C-alpha cells in the first residue's frame, strides 16, 4: 500500500477532498481523478504551456506541479472560465479572432492569458508577447492569439465601466 495523503482544495470554486499519492501531479489529479480533461499534457516538461492552470491566481505547469502543493489552494482550469454557459470575454475573443486551429494549446493559452490580464488589465502588445512566450502553438503563428488577448483586454476595460456581466464574471472568478 503506497503512501497516500489527504488533500483539500478548491477546483473551479468547488471544494474537493481527495486521497492521492504524493507523486501525483496536479495534471494527473485534474484529468484522471476529477475528469477535467480540458487541461492538456503535451511536453510534460514545463516548456509548452498546454497544461497551464492557475493556483491561487498564478499560472503553473500542472504537468510538473505536485497535487500536494495545491493542498488548501484555489485551482482554476479552462473548465472554470465560462459562467452559466456564457464564455468569458477572453474565450469569446479567441473565437472572434480565430485564435486557435487545432485547439490543443488553447486551454493553456487561455489560462496564461487569464492570469496575465488579471495582473495587468491593460497590457501592451509587448507585455502580452512576453507573458505568453512560454506557451507554444504550432498552428496559428501567434498573431491571432495576441490580437485576441489584446481585444479581450479592451473589452474588459469597457466592461469595467459599468457592464453588469463583467462584474458578475469577476465575482465568479
Amino acid at each position: 500500500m503506497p503512501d497516500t495523503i489527504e488533500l483539500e482544495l478548491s477546483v473551479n470554486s468547488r471544494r474537493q477532498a481527495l486521497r492521492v499519492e504524493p507523486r501525483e501531479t496536479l495534471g494527473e489529479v485534474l484529468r484522471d481523478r476529477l475528469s477535467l480533461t480540458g487541461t492538456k499534457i503535451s511536453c510534460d516538461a514545463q516548456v509548452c504551456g498546454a497544461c497551464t492552470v492557475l493556483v491561487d491566481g498564478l499560472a503553473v505547469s500542472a504537468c510538473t506541479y505536485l497535487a500536494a502543493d495545491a493542498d488548501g489552494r484555489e485551482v482554476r482550469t479552462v473548465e472554470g472560465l465560462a459562467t452559466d454557459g456564457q464564455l468569458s470575454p477572453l474565450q469569446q475573443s479567441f473565437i472572434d479572432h480565430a485564435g486557435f486551429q487545432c485547439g490543443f494549446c488553447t486551454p493553456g493559452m487561455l489560462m496564461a492569458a487569464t492570469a496575465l490580464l488579471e495582473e495587468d488589465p491593460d497590457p501592451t502588445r509587448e507585455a502580452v508577447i512576453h507573458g505568453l512566450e512560454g506557451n507554444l502553438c504550432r498552428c496559428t503563428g501567434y498573431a491571432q492569439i495576441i490580437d485576441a488577448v489584446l481585444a479581450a483586454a479592451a473589452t474588459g476595460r469597457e466592461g469595467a465601466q459599468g457592464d453588469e456581466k463583467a462584474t458578475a464574471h469577476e465575482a465568479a472568478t
Partner: protein
Amino acid sequence: MIPRFSLARPTTLSEAFESHLAAGGDAAYLAGGTELLQVMKMGFAQFGVLIDLKGIEELGGLEVAPDGRLRIGAATTHRTLERSALVRERLPALAALEARVANVRVRNTGTIGGNLAFAEPHSDPATFLLVCGATVELSGPNGRRELTIGEFVLGPLFTAREPDEIVVAIHVPATGPSSGRAYDKIAFFERPAASVGVAFTVADGAIREATVAVGSLTEVPTIVAAAGTAFEGSEAAEAALDGPSGAAADAFGALDVVADLNGSPDYKRHLAGVLLGRAARTALREALAHA
C-alpha cells in the same frame, strides 16, 4: 509518472534534518520542484522521501538585513524577485534578470535557492550573483556556513552542499556608491545560450573596479579576471567603452568553452562578446547615475 516517494512537510529546519536522517540518505529536499521533479520524471533520479521545504518560515523573507546586504530567503520564487519593489529599487538588474528566467510558470514556482542548488551551468541567477559577490548560506545538522557562489558551485549540477544541508538564504552585498551592475543574455531555448554579468565602480571619471563573469559558456559560471582588467582605468563614458569592451571580449578566448545545442565554442564566445558590450553600457549608466 514520477517514481513513487513519501512526502515530508517539516515546518522547521531541525525537523527537516530529522526527516533526512530518518530516510537514511534516500531523501532529497524539495522546493519549487521545477528541476527535481523533472529529473525524477525522466528517470535520472529517484528518492524514497522528498522533504518539502516550503513550509519552513526561515526560508522565506526578502529584506535588507542590518548588515546592509539584501537577504533573499532561499524559497523565494523567481516571480517574487521579479515583482518585488525592494529588488527593483536595490538591485534592478536582478529584477530584470528574473523577469526573463524560463517562462512565467517556472518563475511562479521555481525558487532562487533551488536554482542555485541544482547548479545548472546555464543558470541566470548564478552568473549575476557571482558578479555581485553574493554568498549562499547553508544550514545543516552540524551548523551553518556561508559560501561565495564560486565556492558553492563546483561543477555542472554539482555544489559544495552536503546532502543533508539546506540552502537557507542568499546574501547580496549592497551596490556601493558610483557602482553599477548589469546582466544580459541571449536564449534560443528555455535556458541562455550565453550570458554576461558586469559590475563597475567609477571614480574621477574613470572605471576603477570592474568584474566580468560569463555563464552558459563554461561548465560553471566563471569570473574572467582579464576581462575585468581590460576595463579598469578606462574613461567612464559610454562612447569610450568600445575599445575596452573589445579587449575584454578577447579575454574570452582563453576560456574552455563547452559546445552544446546553442552552438560552437567560437560562436558562444562571439555571443558573449556582444552581450558584454551591452551589459557594460548598462552597468556604466547605473554607476554614473549613482555617482
